[in-house]
């Protein structure tokens, strides 16, 4: 008799057993597919949220006095403006989102404001991402909340002897940024009389080190080779939170999935053991009908594998649906990035039957090793 037909007949006869087996395999596919499909969004979401905490590394001129830096809000001394470009060609760096700035104090409406000149962010070639901060056009200014009273977008103001158009007034940040007047770097250099230099580069420390590594030492070592004329300050609290959160996000998925798969494998193994137990007499009679171990093993392994194929397809569909349906609510910022990952279907259809057969293997071996004579004797005269 055709083996597949026999398996199908048995599976439909013991439909509750088959349904439970299918359910275990279905879960073993659906949850990993859902997690994996939303996993990219989760990482991006975490990354985005952590990025929103702001820059966590500052590169200052080597001779800058830190007490003075914190007191006046900008560093003494200068770095060449081109220094920031050196990061673009370096590989395997812990720095990203590099923002060159020139800051200094100027008077605006009889108040000392922190004039801050910016250029566009730069990034190592392999890590190019969207800018963390707005860009400022030459001839324009973005005014912090504390210094923008009575001024609106489109107004012309004079700052340090330069006429600038107000591009935007910023909402309250609750930090020193509320007293900043953001202008283009070239305008700041002109106002402060410091051509072709910057006095601070802000950056985001990217998470690429293993736990236990001294991050500040690593940052300093990298900076020494790229900008030896600079010194690095790490905003430890922000950087640590960012690092911990990203690690947590990754470890969550890494830890959870093996447990889900182990539980499903355990259920498949248990259900197959029950199936073997129920079919002891059948195994005995099939032996009496001349069938060998290969046929007996195939009845159990192929059943698990066939259900694995069905469960892979159904689980993939369900997992993708879960991710698409509920993922956007959980990860609203990166919702658009959640899409069906068709390559997972291939992995599932190939991997799940193997997973199912492997889980059923111990019970199948028990079925093969079962003494048919013992079973048939039990009901003899």
């Amino acid at each position, binding site marked *: 008799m055709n083996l597949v037909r026999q398996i199908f007949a048995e599976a439909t*006869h013991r439909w509750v057993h088959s349904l439970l087996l299918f359910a275990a395999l279905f879960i073993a596919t659906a949850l990993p597919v859902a997690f994996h499909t939303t996993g990219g969004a989760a990482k991006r979401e975490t990354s985005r949220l952590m990025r929103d905490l702001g820059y966590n590394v500052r590169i200052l001129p080597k001779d800058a006095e830190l007490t003075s830096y914190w007191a006046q809000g900008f560093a003494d001394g200068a770095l060449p403006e081109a220094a920031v470009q050196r990061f673009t060609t370096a590989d395997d760096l812990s720095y990203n989102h590099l923002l060159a700035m020139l800051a200094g104090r100027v008077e605006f409406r009889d108040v000392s404001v922190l004039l801050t000149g910016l250029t566009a962010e730069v990034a190592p070639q392999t890590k190019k991402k969207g800018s963390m901060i707005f860009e400022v056009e030459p001839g324009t200014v973005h005014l912090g909340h504390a210094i923008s009273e009575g001024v609106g977008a489109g107004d012309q103001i004079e700052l340090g002897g330069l006429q600038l158009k107000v591009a935007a007034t910023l909402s309250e940040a609750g930090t020193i940024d509320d007293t900043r007047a953001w202008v283009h770097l070239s305008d700041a250099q002109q106002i402060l009389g410091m051509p072709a230099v910057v006095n601070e580069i802000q950056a985001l420390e990217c998470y690429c080190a293993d736990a236990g590594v001294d991050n500040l030492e690593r940052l300093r070592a990298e900076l020494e080779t790229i900008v030896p004329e600079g010194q690095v300050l790490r905003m430890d609290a922000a950087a640590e939170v960012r690092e911990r959160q990203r690690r947590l996000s990754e470890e969550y998925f890494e830890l959870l999935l093996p447990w889900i798969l182990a539980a499903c494998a355990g259920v498949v193994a248990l259900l197959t053991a029950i199936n073997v137990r129920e079919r002891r007499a059948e195994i005995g009679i099939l032996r009496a009908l001349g069938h060998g171990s290969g*046929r007996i093993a195939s009845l159990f392994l192929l059943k698990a594998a066939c259900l694995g194929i069905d469960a892979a397809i159904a689980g993939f569909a369900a997992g993708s649906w879960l991710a698409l349906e509920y993922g956007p609510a959980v990860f609203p910022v990166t919702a658009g990035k959640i899409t069906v990952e068709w390559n997972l279907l291939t992995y599932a259809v190939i991997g799940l039957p193997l997973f199912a057969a492997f889980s059923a293997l111990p019970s199948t071996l028990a079925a093969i090793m079962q003494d048919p004579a013992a079973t048939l004797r039990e009901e003899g005269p």
Partner: protein
Amino acid sequence: MIRARSIEHTWRDASAEVRCLRGLDLELEAGEFCCLRGVSGSGKTTLLLALGGMLRPSGGTVQIGSEDLYSLSSGARARARAQQVGFVFQMFHLVPYLSARDNLLAVRSDLSRQEREARADELLESVGLQHRADHRPAALSAGERQRVAVCRALFNKPTLILADEPTGNLDPDSAEVVLDLLTQYTAGGGAVLMATHSQTPESRASRTLWLRDGTLHTS
């Protein structure tokens, strides 16, 4: 046709040893219908399983035709069992999820698919069960189940049928039908060794053997 020499078997478990077969000899010729009697636990089923290649005895040889069953590999023995031996059990042992016809087709066979299907239909028709071919065992009466089981044993036209109390669960009429089938089979040149507690089959038997103290006796 079948020769068993010096068959010994001892069942062992953690607490005891039971030496149920003690140097037993048996020969069955083609066309012979032999009844095997003995009290419960005397070793009748053990002997049938040993003769059918299902249970390697602790000692002795079993030869069917020219083949010494237990000198064959397990695969070759399974093949020889499929070709040369048919089993009929008291509890029928039909595969519950297969139809009557599929139970016959579940026998290992070298026939082509068409030949197997034709053989199954022919056998079911010969026992008047062609209209029940697509029914599962649960839908059949005990007598019908045993007729299907006998058809299954006959499927490969074996040399020997080993029947373990095949009428034990049947009403007298059904038992007669089953005995008729086995008698017809021996008339065609097959041999039957039937373990039984009943005296009824003895009228069909060419001889009756008694299993006592692990050896065979003629009375």
